[in-house]
């Protein structure tokens, strides 16, 4: 009986909580298509922890905390360029090779009991020891005094509703499925409304280098076909993530599969995907409605589709003679808002594939700035940096789900941000 259960369990999909360190975001996303591996949103649901890419020492405790949140029996896999001791006992897989067989092997060994579960990495210390001292066993002299069970309780604050209730401080990230990994937000929620937002930390590793196509295009001419295919793939990958957040997992997989190897001939398939997405009612039912002040903020920030969705024709490609020779004109939305940005992104993916088909071997000009899928990219000035600056103003006052959809729509890429800003600081140092 026991061996039957173990055999059955070993045949189940290995459920993985993945930490996507610097330079591994796309590779981790691709794992969603791997056989026998299922990426989950919470370490409580996982059997195996996958730690991918480079991670700064300041994130090491967070990694250990995530590790300890996995239920026993648990195992971890380190997916990185070189071996390190971040998670002792983790199997090592080189970045660039497929980790899914190592993950499945670890999962099977756990279920068969041939591999012991990993012990906790953090010391067993209570955050703050607490003993009741008051007459009823409470922590302090007042009725709510002290820090019960090692933590204080939230405190009262006024609210726009006129009811003075508790503000719940919440630290989201750095490894939350709701945010790009590496981003930490300090949120204060009153009920389900975010009333205070601060970006607490960004970036994964100081040494991040990115060989991204668009960063390369900053310094050397790149074939337009290549650039536009890259743009379309990026948009499709973004769509896959955003669809997942909205609970449409099957469509998300379809978008990801398309995004993995979209080529100029695929524009019909992307159009069909866009039509199927529209048919789900997502634009009417799921996404927050456009809001005047927020749309205005985005309109001035050169954030690519988010900006063009409000009808502002801001696009660096217009300045490029190579694009002009192809008859390029930016696509524009109307009214702004998340739904318009979604539609525009999909329409741009189609347009990019068409452009790539017509592009031949035309090469882009080096103008000092490139239109990346996220917006205007220049040395020392990444669109994700501008998006992070706007983020608190954009989502303050929103309902939780609306805020998460809005963050997703901004498409923050910390790798790109790190590479562009690291470039400038290196230049400054030189």
């Amino acid at each position, binding site marked *: 009986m026991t061996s039957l259960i173990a055999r059955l369990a070993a045949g189940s999909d290995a459920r993985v909580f993945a930490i996507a360190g610097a330079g591994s975001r796309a590779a981790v996303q691709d794992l969603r298509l791997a056989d026998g591996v299922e990426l989950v949103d919470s370490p409580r649901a996982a059997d195996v922890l996958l730690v991918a890419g480079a991670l700064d020492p300041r994130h090491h405790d967070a990694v250990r905390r995530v590790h300890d949140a996995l239920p026993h029996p648990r195992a971890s896999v380190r997916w990185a360029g070189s071996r390190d001791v971040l998670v002792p006992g983790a199997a090592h897989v080189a970045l660039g090779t497929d980790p899914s067989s190592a993950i499945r092997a670890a999962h099977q060994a756990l279920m068969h009991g041939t591999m012991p579960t990993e012990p906790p990495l953090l010391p067993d210390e209570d955050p703050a020891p607490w003993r*009741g001292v008051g007459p009823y066993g409470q*922590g302090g002299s007042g*009725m709510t005094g002290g820090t019960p069970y090692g933590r204080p*309780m939230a405190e009262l604050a006024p609210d726009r509703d006129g*009811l003075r209730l508790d503000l719940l401080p919440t630290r989201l990230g750095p490894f939350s499925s709701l945010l790009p990994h590496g981003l930490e937000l300090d949120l204060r929620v009153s009920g389900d409304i975010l009333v205070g937002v601060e970006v607490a930390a960004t970036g994964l590793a100081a040494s991040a280098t990115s060989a991204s196509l668009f960063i390369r295009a900053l310094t050397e001419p790149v074939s337009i076909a290549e650039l536009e295919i890259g743009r379309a793939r990026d948009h499709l990958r973004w769509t896959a993530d955003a669809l997942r957040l909205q609970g449409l997992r099957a469509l998300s997989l379809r978008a990801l599969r398309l995004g993995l190897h979209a080529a100029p001939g695929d524009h019909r398939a992307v159009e069909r995907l866009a039509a199927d997405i529209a048919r789900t009612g997502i634009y009417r039912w799921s996404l927050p409605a456009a809001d005047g002040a927020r749309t205005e903020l985005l309109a001035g920030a050169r954030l690519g589709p988010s900006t063009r969705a409000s009808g502002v024709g801001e696009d660096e490609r217009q300045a490029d003679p190579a694009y002009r020779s192809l008859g390029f004109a930016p696509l524009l939305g109307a009214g702004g808002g998340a739904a318009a940005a979604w539609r525009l992104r999909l329409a741009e993916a189609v347009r990019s594939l068409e452009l790539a088909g017509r592009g031949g071997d035309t090469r882009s000009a080096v103008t000092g700035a490139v239109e990346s899928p996220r917006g205007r990219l220049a040395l020392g000035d990444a669109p994700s940096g501008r998006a992070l600056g706007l983020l608190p103003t954009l989502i303050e006052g929103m309902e939780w789900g609306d805020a998460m959809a809005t963050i997703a729509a901004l498409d923050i890429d910390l790798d790109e941000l790190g590479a562009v800003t690291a470039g400038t600081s290196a230049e400054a140092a030189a």
Partner: protein
Amino acid sequence: MSDLPVSLAFAAFSAVAVVAGIRVFRTDSMVRAAFYLLASFAAVGAIMVLLGAEFLGMVLILMMAGEMLVMAIVMVMYMMNPAGLNPMVMVHQHRTAIAAGAVAFLALAGVGLAGGVPQRPVTNPGAATGDLGRELLGNSMLVFQTAGVTLLGTMVGAIAIAAPRGRFGDADADSQEPALQPDEEPEA
């Protein structure tokens, strides 16, 4: 069905009703208090079913599930320390209250035991729901329509009282902070 299962079920449900009723005031967590009250109501509903009032019993359970969820939600909203993480006792006139409760129990139970209740059991419990329907549309029509108006008044009143914004400006205009200590003057 024989009498024994019914008696056993009655004993069990009575125990749940009374114990859960006591636990309502003996737990630190407000959510638990609300759900204990729900358990007490559900047990009373089940006893009603045993008594042949199937419809009334089930509808009581149905109604109370919604009402106690709202009760729990409102409790959490307005009570400091809603989960009872920090134990506390918030009672006044405790002895008087216990005495009053005991007196109420003894008096009512005494009346029930001594009062000589007439024995006219319900004849056809299966027809009870239909009887109630005909009563609603016939003799008690006025009560029924009055209930409608009362509920309308309740809805309008509750929203007008509780809503954050009304035609006369914000509801919290001219409000003030309470004092931190019982005898202090409130903050301006």
